[in-house]
């Protein structure tokens, strides 16, 4: 029912419309100049559109109908853990005692919030096998950066000058980027034929210049690092720290704990493993959990229990400082707390079901695609579109776009970088068997079409509100905001 392109806000604007009723001033009237010198008053007109409330509601409701989302369908975006986001968690986060609480409110009136932080830290410590947690990082990459800073502070105190961070070639781009932002030199280590980090190659670079190995486990191929204990020995053997990118934590909840695997520090993506909504690209939360030796360096403040009171501890002399304002994405933490409470010891079932779903989907798809590392996967797996590309010219991008016509979101494509024409597929544990089968059926049908009707694949999508979009022109001549010249094209 919603056809054609939608107007932009500016195209719905007309002088004199308004979509809210702001209050009038109720204090004695004084000339504005008595409050603000003229030089400080805005001169240029405020070019904000004027839209009535009904029209604004229609604008965003219509836009929402042009968005794919977990609540609408299967969303197998690998590495992103697009699981169901429980509604009860939304209700909890919107309670006025959480949503309307000022971060500088006196401790006496923040006891419930502080207790939630302390209890959540305790639960995450148990789940990870670590000792302490900071909630300040706003997302996974932010957690990575924080973790590396902790490691740096740790070595600095010990007087060790370590300048390098090892990153496997399969790692997510945020890993090397974080290392660089922390002033480290990045050393890349290749993967072996089983899709794990090449332990011999690792050994070769593991020396006293190395501050840390950033490992993802299960890694971005969806494979568990089978030689994790050897890796741990190599890294600790050279005096470095072992860091876990916990983006894939969903696969091992309750099965094996990073702390028990020998990791010194890790971040979690609460917006993946712990079901907090991705929000179209955030907010997330990337808490960092550490073993005791790194705890002194955690960002300040930290919520602590003091008898039956809770308080924020600011005075931690060895802290790295702050990596964002206040205490992190508290609203996200409330949701994660509710989520963990909803599973308790049953969290292990999350991992089991996630892994079962992934292996089932892999089994259904194996006939049609190349499987670069064919072993039981964890929560996700990689297929390669190489056969299709070679035989028909249809690329993984084409296949992804064609999937949209079947009513599905596409997998993550062209990641990890070490697999050609990669499709990284993660069904998550909240999907039904029926949904998984329907997706497999669609992807197999597309694989078929690559042969029988290549053109329809190469020019996909066809049933979406817009057809394939021109990314090249977008980047070459960036148009990044409305101007009166933003014509309604087409």
């Amino acid at each position, binding site marked *: 029912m919603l056809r054609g392109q939608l107007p*932009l806000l500016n195209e719905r604007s007309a002088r004199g419309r308004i979509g809210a009723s*702001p209050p*009038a*001033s109720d*204090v*004695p009237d004084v000339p504005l100049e008595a*409050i603000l010198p003229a030089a400080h008053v*805005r001169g240029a007109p405020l*070019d*904000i559109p004027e*839209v009535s*409330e009904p029209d*604004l509601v229609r*604008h*965003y409701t219509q836009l*929402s109908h042009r*968005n794919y*989302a977990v609540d609408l369908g299967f969303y197998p975006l690998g590495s992103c853990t697009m*699981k*169901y986001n*429980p509604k009860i968690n939304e209700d*909890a986060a919107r309670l006025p005692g*959480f949503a*309307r*609480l*000022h971060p500088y409110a006196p401790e006496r009136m923040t*006891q419930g919030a502080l207790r939630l932080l302390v209890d959540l830290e305790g639960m995450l410590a148990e789940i990870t096998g670590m000792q302490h947690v900071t909630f300040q990082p706003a997302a*996974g*990459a932010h957690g990575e950066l924080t973790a590396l800073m902790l490691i740096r502070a740790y070595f600095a105190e010990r007087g060790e000058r370590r300048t390098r961070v090892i990153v496997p070639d399969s790692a997510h*781009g*945020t890993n090397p980027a974080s290392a660089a*932002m922390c002033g480290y030199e990045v050393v890349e280590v290749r993967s072996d034929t089983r899709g794990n980090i090449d332990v011999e190659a690792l050994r070769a670079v593991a020396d006293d210049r190395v501050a840390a190995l950033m490992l993802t486990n299960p890694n971005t191929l969806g494979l568990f690092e089978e030689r994790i204990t050897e890796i741990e020995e190599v890294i600790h053997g050279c005096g470095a720290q072992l860091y876990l990118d916990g983006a894939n934590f969903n696969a*091992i*909840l309750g099965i*094996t704990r990073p702390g028990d695997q020998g990791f010194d520090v890790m971040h979690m993506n609460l917006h993946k493993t712990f079901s907090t*909504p991705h*929000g*179209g690209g*955030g*907010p997330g939360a990337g808490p960092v959990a550490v073993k005791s030796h790194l705890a002194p360096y955690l960002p300040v403040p930290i919520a602590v229990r003091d008898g039956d009171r809770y308080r924020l501890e600011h005075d931690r002399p060895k802290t790295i*400082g702050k990596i964002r*304002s*206040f205490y992190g994405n508290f609203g*996200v933490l409330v949701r994660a707390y*509710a989520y963990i409470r*909803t599973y308790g*010891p049953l*969290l292990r079932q999350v991992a089991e079901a996630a892994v*079962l779903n992934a292996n089932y989907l892999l089994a259904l798809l194996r006939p049609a695609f190349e499987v670069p590392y064919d*072993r039981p996967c964890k929560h996700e797996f990689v297929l390669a579109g190489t056969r299709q590309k070679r035989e028909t010219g249809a690329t993984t991008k084409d296949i992804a*776009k064609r999937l949209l016509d079947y009513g599905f979101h596409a997998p993550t494509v062209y990641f990890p970088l070490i697999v050609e024409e990669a499709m990284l597929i993660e069904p998550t544990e909240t999907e039904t*068997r029926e*949904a998984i089968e329907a997706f497999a059926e669609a992807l197999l049908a597309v694989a078929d079409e690559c042969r029988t009707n290549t053109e329809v694949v190469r020019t996909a999508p066809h049933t979406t509100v*817009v*057809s*394939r979009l021109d990314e090249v022109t977008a980047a070459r001549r*960036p*148009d*990044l*905001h409305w101007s009166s010249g933003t014509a309604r094209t087409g």
Partner: protein
Amino acid sequence: MTPWTAHKYISLTEADRQHMLRTIGVPSVEDLFTDVPRSVRLLRALDLPPVPSDAELLRELRGLSERNGDADRFACFLGAGAYDHFIPSIVWHLAGRSEFYTAYTPYQAEIMQGELQAAYEYQSLLCALTGMEVSNASMYDGASATAEATVMARDLTHRDEVVVSSAVHPEYRQVVRTYTRHLGVEVRDLLHQRGVTPVEMARDLLSERTAALIVQQPNFFGGLEDMGRLAEAAHAVGALLVVAAADPVAYALLKPPGEWGADIVAGEGQPLGNHLNFGGPFLGMLATRQAFVRRMPGRLVGRTVDTQGRRGFVLTLQTREQHIRREHATSNICTNEALNALAAAIYMAALGRGGLRQVAEVCARRAHYAMGRLAQIPGFTPAFEGPTFHEFVLRCPRDPEEINGRLLDVGIVGGLALGRFYPDLGDSWLLCVTENRTREEIDRLARTLEAMR
């Protein structure tokens, strides 16, 4: 492995499980985990509290939330980086639609035009408000955005010193330090004088080595900086002017940073339609000049056309980003605060040109009234001279923390005791009056303080 307990979020039945295992060709789920060495297995159940029913869980959380004092039940005079503006109902009715909040980064643009258009509109609105040429789609928060702006300035100028006014939010300054510590950037403090950034001293500190001068407008004390001359001073040595904004609502009334010549605006978008949330999620803003766009961190959404020439929107200039450029990216940021940016856009559009201006003006008028009213109380005097927007500092006749404690007893959350961040301002109290504080509340605050004497 033990049989599963039925759970409302897991859709697999026992029959499903059996069928799937048969298809996979393994006898049990256990067999899918043989790659996990026995030595690192957890051989017991996780030691977590037992699972409550839905009703019990909500009761528990409601219980925790009610041990907090929310801004509906308390008249809140705290600002200092988190602002209690009124949020129209439509903002979260719309941003709270699950098509938005259960989606992720719009990698498949053709089925994500909703978010993408909304982000493009957010960028447009933010440019209009700040007077800048280009805005990204969001950063984590005001503090980290300011830190990223600092790094960006370093990269743009190839210089390694920044001058930061002490009238910038203390937490932003802390985060700037944390972010730059390992990048060889030297952060030089520019001490405020009587609540504003002294231009002469700025000139003294600025040099050919300076990448950026960082000030906040309105500043942490609520005061207005001499932006024109600060911009001049920075530009005179080839440094960039980075303006941190703690409450962009101000720019609906005040001359925006873009008009003053700012090169980068970094700041906090929370006040635009986002809840206080005990400090997060908030919304990092980052806007700059067109010429600097390829050094910007974060996501950018651009307009383009489809194969039939119809308008559409895509993520663009991604070669700046970590997933392509890895250690050479402009930043490591990936997940950001998209939903909060959406809320901010709806907020700005709902109020519109006239409404935003009115909100800003009512803030300024009420704050002005409050400052006048409170300064009449013996013992309370304005700490600084000069114009302010919606925050101001009072010197108090007794410890502001003690005053806050006593106000709390009558349902008022007082201001911020500045001694926490500025030891020399131990008797000073930073108060904020938004349009959400009524005259009646201001008068009640005044009467309570009077009665305290």
